[in-house]
């Protein structure tokens, strides 16, 4: 199982979401994608999209105004 980190620091919406969509497309089921963000609306729309797609999602606040969205590809 691969683990991929996607650096989206300093990127505003909707760039983190589109980048996460493209990155996850290339990955295999069971792989983990970690999206690093510092844009508060991506903290909402990236997990929302991934949950709607049926993946396992966890959101970690790693620092003030910085988050990691951990997505486990389920299908």
């Amino acid at each position, binding site marked *: 199982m691969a683990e991929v980190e996607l650096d989206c620091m300093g990127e505003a919406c909707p*760039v983190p979401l589109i980048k996460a969509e493209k990155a996850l497309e290339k990955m295999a089921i069971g792989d983990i994608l970690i999206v690093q963000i510092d844009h508060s609306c991506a903290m909402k729309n990236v997990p929302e999209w991934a949950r709607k797609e049926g993946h396992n999602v966890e959101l970690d606040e790693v620092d003030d105004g910085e988050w990691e969205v951990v997505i486990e590809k389920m299908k």
Partner: protein
Amino acid sequence: MDIRKNEFYKSWFKDAWPYVTGAVLLSAFQIITFATTGNPWGVSGTLAYWGAWIFELVGGSVDTWYYFSSEGAQRTLDAGFLQHGGTMQNLGIIIGALFASLAACQFKIKKLKTVRQVVAAVLGGLLMGYGARIGFGCNIGALYSGISSLSLSGWVFGIFLFAGAYVGSKLLVKFFM
């Protein structure tokens, strides 16, 4: 007690408010704004005055500019920064946003990643600013205040706003992905 674990702190300051709460508050405050000042809520018109005041500060004059030629505009310019209601509203937005991000422990000065980001931001800002003045309003003054005061112009603005956003997002994917 750790305040970060407090339910009240979480729902009021940490987590984003639900869309409905935001919609109700925006509606209530824009009605109050209209009722007390006599003008619908706007944002970008004020920025044009800020530009004029800064230009005057460095010795320029906008007295002969067509945009500022009306009596009302001249009165606003003469009265100054501190007498302008729209200025106070815009400062309120900036200070309020700062307070909200500080209260949520989410304040961060973001680093610029690429020169492309800077070019896009400056170009986008100039286009939006110019468009907002040519269109007599931005998405607040022309769209939001237009529609809420039952003006057809707000809907027309909305249609073209969506068309612009569609083209803009295509360009974004092309140049930023």
